[in-house]
């Protein structure tokens, strides 16, 4: 795999090119204007060109024979578990209330640690669900239900 001497840099370059291209394509619908009277499309296109050019340079640099060998080390598991917890809160809180949604978030997120313990996660989830309600709903007046709305919400 001589071609992929530095996948880390190459992927970074490709990412910038992708963002630049997206900007160029999407901003085609916006009026370009001239330097003296810039339209809404002028600046995004300028940035898009810079991103594509810089990204291409980054890809070229990663292909150099003497480029350092660097591979990104992906560990998606902890991130995804934590974000699943957050997504669960996003979906549940408006319907089931913050106590239950907070409990679910903390419980799911706890799985991301290598040192996960069942009992601890259950207790900490319950405590934090209640604490979140006290601080954010009663303390700061956040407009979310405390309990599931089908049993009254209790706000």
């Amino acid at each position, binding site marked *: 795999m001589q071609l992929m001497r530095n996948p880390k840099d190459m*992927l970074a370059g490709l990412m910038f090119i992708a963002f630049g291209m997206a900007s160029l394509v999407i901003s085609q619908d*916006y009026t370009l204007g001239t*330097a*003296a009277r810039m339209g*809404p499309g002028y600046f995004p296109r300028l940035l898009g060109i810079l991103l594509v050019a810089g990204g291409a340079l980054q890809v070229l640099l990663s292909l150099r024979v003497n480029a350092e060998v660097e591979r990104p*080390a992906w*560990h998606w598991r902890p991130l995804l578990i934590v974000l699943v917890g957050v*997504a669960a809160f996003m979906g549940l809180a408006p319907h089931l209330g913050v106590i239950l949604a907070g409990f679910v*978030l903390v419980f799911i997120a706890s799985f991301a640690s*290598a040192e996960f313990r069942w009992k601890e996660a259950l207790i900490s989830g319950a405590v934090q669900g209640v604490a979140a309600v006290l601080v954010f709903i009663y303390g700061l007046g956040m407009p979310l239900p405390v309990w599931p709305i089908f049993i009254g919400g209790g706000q």
Partner: protein
Amino acid sequence: MDILANLALGFGVAFTPINLGYAFLGSLVGTLIGVLPGIGPVATIAMLLPITYGLPTVTALIMLAGIYYGASYGGSTTAILVNLPGEMSSVITVIDGHQMARQGRAGAALCIAALGSFFAGTVATTVIAAFAPPLAEVALKFDAAEYFALMVLGLVSAIALAQGSVLKAVLMAILGLLFGIIGTDVNTGTSRFAFNIPELIDGIGFVAMTMGLFAFAEIATNLEKTEGRHVMTAKIDSLWITWKEFKQSFGAILRGSAIGSLLGILPGGGATLSSFASYTVEKKISSDPSRFGKGAIEGVAGPEAANNAGAQTSFIPMLTLGIPSNAVMALMVGALIIHDIQPGPQIMTKTPELFWGLIASMWIGNVMLVILNLPLIGLWVKLLSVPYRLLYPMIVLCCTIGAYSANNNMFDVGVAIAFGIAGYVFVKLGCEPAPFLLGYILGPMLEENLRRALVLSRGDYSVFVTRPISVVMLAIAAVLLVVTVLPAVRKTRDTVFQED
């Protein structure tokens, strides 16, 4: 004396019970997150930003500023006692601070760190009071071209100080600019990159984005390190320092305060850079450099003074020019905008009570930190023994609710999730999120000033190199960028940042 009258006004504002209370709260929360490794001031300030919506602007800023300098205080406690930097700015304190603790001088190290920080804070407050007004006066004469050049300089400085590849940092800043202009274009009313999503009309939620980029991504990277954080706390005997130690550290504190005050003002500077610079200086001028790394008290006193001074003077470019010099200042600008205050030189003339109240509160906050921290050290030590597996779900929950409460909208939680993934990819590909955040904040301002400058010059780009102030700033930016890329400088820059 103008300065005295201004400071009197400031202390008048800062000494009201509500402002004193929030300065205390900010310093306390700042110290707390400073002590705990794994959560930084950027994520915390973003998390608490929505809470400050209901507060008066000056009170909000006082609290947020307290978090920032409180964090650098708390970070040193962890550095000395546990051999772990609580914050980036205390990375260097670990070296000699923990050695002192091992030799039974933990109390002395904590004491000198607190006193040095307090002294430096006082110096920095004076520096701000003396230099901010003339700087703001110069800035009032700035036109669009100068503002454009200044922002470019700010971005380049952030790039020069980012870790790793310069090219990646440049591209991250540009990407940040692009994300910054999402939403309605103020000049034409065209909605850009919003894909007809109503929540995107006003742009991507700043708080939610910061949560994802900094908090979620950081937690995920922390969780990868499988080895548990074993807290081995050194014993604290007495907090007194000996006369010999005092004499050794006095010069270091003076020099650290000067270095920090100076480097803090530079765009892109701030607490971390200042502490590194101070340590290098102390080691260079020491009559016996071999003591460093083995518990030299100057190696604690100097950097601790410098990081506190730097943290405070980094407010100068933000308050006088409206240009944030680091990620925390970018958040402060965000806070000002949320409170309908346009950051820039007019802050000082239009709302002097805001400006001087904030400055005075920083000094008061420093007094509080000394009084608060030395007796509370026992409590912080206990806190450090809470395992990370219990701590991080709590941070996640607070961040999630924080993202929601920015606009009381679950859409923002979705934004935070998306940026959590993006932030993780950025870190893994060696792309620093800090230049991105700065670009995001500067994006709309940069475009606006570029537009205005070119309208005035009828589309002639040479306007940026024919106006003297603008050309000087762009030249500095260009030199800085070239110098950063030079192999010799890159090497030292890499060693400077190697510590973490």
